[in-house]
């Protein structure tokens, strides 16, 4: 697996070598997750998924029932956003103290081609020990992303490497699987922790 060694290197490659654009990922949002409450049309967030965790175990959304889920999407070669997101999640868990045990943070890769369970295991080891990395087949990952309206698109570089443009939201799901709230990238850990605690 190729990894970028620095943001500058990746940015330089992207800017000067980019001549080809191809798309990957679903690009179409699930149409079935819509309901109507009164006169408002509600677009649901979240849903069933079947993936593999970084220990190689097959898991589903049902597997995590009883825990609050803190879900982010990304990929291990992501130079800035993803490691920062996981760092902020780690700091949030630290701030929550014993309450952190109620939470299962999940990092779902959008790059199953490169992010095998072993690669994910090495990656998440850099962050809070509670964080679990999930991968799967391309279809499984696409289905999970679609359920959370997580957008991603592959941009192929001329040297054959590629980067992913992807959404940067972190989702908080209730122990019964319902969507509770979400956090934009860069939400300070103290704010994230406070908002999570308010949901307990």
């Amino acid at each position, binding site marked *: 697996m190729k990894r970028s060694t620095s943001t500058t290197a990746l940015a330089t490659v992207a*800017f000067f070598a*980019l001549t080809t654009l191809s798309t990957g990922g679903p*690009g179409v*949002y699930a149409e079935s997750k819509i309901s109507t409450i009164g006169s408002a*049309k509600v677009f649901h967030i979240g849903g069933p998924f079947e993936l593999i965790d970084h220990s190689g175990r097959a898991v589903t959304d049902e597997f995590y029932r009883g825990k609050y889920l803190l879900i982010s999407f990304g990929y291990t070669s992501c130079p800035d956003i993803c490691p920062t997101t996981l760092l902020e999640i780690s700091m949030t868990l630290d701030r929550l103290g014993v309450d952190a045990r109620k939470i299962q943070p999940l990092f779902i890769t959008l790059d199953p081609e490169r992010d095998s369970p072993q690669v994910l295991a090495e990656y998440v080891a850099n962050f809070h020990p509670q964080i679990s990395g999930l991968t799967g087949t391309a279809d499984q990952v696409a289905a999970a992303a679609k359920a959370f309206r997580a*957008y991603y698109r592959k941009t192929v570089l001329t040297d054959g490497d590629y980067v992913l443009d992807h959404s940067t*939201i972190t989702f908080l799901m209730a122990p019964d699987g319902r969507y509770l709230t979400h956090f934009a*990238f860069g939400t300070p850990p103290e704010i994230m922790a406070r908002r999570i605690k308010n949901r307990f």
Partner: protein
Amino acid sequence: MLGRAGPTTAVAVRVGTMAGFLLAVIHPVAALDDVRRYVFVPDRATSEVAIIDTESDELETALRLDQIPNQLLLPTDASTSRPLGFLLASNTVDDSIAVVDLETLAMVRRIELGDDPDRMEIDRDGEIVAASSVEAGKVFLVSLRHGRVLRTVSGLHGPDTMVFGPDGKLLYVGNLGSAEVSVIDVASGQVVGEIPIGPTDRRPASGRIGAYTAGDRMGIVDPGTQRLISGVVNLSRTSFGSRGFASHAASDTLTVIDLRTQEKVKTLVLGDVPFRTYATADSLQLISLNNGDGTISVVSMRTLEEVARIRGARDMTGVNTGWFETTAVIPSRAENKALVVDLTEPGVIAEIPLPSSPETGVTTPDGTKVYIALSKTAQVAVIDVSKQRLVKVIDGVGKEPWGLYMAGAIAYCH
């Protein structure tokens, strides 16, 4: 509360020296207690910019400038979406750009241009600002690092809206007075290309660019400025930066441009007078406000085909998408309401009456709320996008609030 009480010496360094300013530009600072949670609201009648806290939906404070700004910019780092710690305000009284430090809310620099700055755009590195002057026919390329104009590009035909190419080396300029997008090399300040827009199967009878005949209108009159616009009424781009969209109101067309190669990809015929066209933050769809017939065109970015043309309203002012890009909120100045459009199955699913005429709006970075300025009543409307309803009206916002700005308003890594 806004801001944090930093050491006096640290503030003095940042304000007083070139090195301090460079530091503020190069190293993004966390200022104003997370700048991204505030909405900045400029005004037509006062030089104070109201600042609203989106957590409380209350007026927090005001930024006091020395003149009424024409436009604000809140630059963010292109890779991380983090605010760069300063705000830019363009001024038509003294033809300048003011640079305001967001930690101190004090102006740290004024950059003189020499002509009215009508529009500003900043490159993805936060280093170069392009300022267009429609009447003067000029574009100024300004270095924030050096605090001065580096290059002046003259001889353009009413340069107005602009977009930088994805690598920042080229600047694309929409000309109000000609059906062409000018391509400028940023380093040299030279015009290196002209991209004709509009219908390719027709040519102006007189040979003059923009002078369409045989049933085509000559142009449209901008109600705000009373200018006759025969050329590019709007130029915008995808958030990922690879495609640009030039609207030609005189022929009801939209030209899609590959910003990496300067090539035209396609020309679409949309509704009557496609006045404003914007891509969703995920670049999956394009939404065009056709103010000539009050319709809204939804274009698939994957197929570059119009997938829906739906009933809109009169005098639609802008498009604000949110809630994971499932929903668009579109204010109608003539009908005192906001339309809520379902982008998954394109159609208007709600109409929200507003207390008075809406101007433009802005979506919060997490996509949950849209704020809309109500200039006639000095208010700001707060719309919950997921619930598709008005949840609050904030009173006492300046005298004639017209625009709203927030830093880091999209939630995508690219």
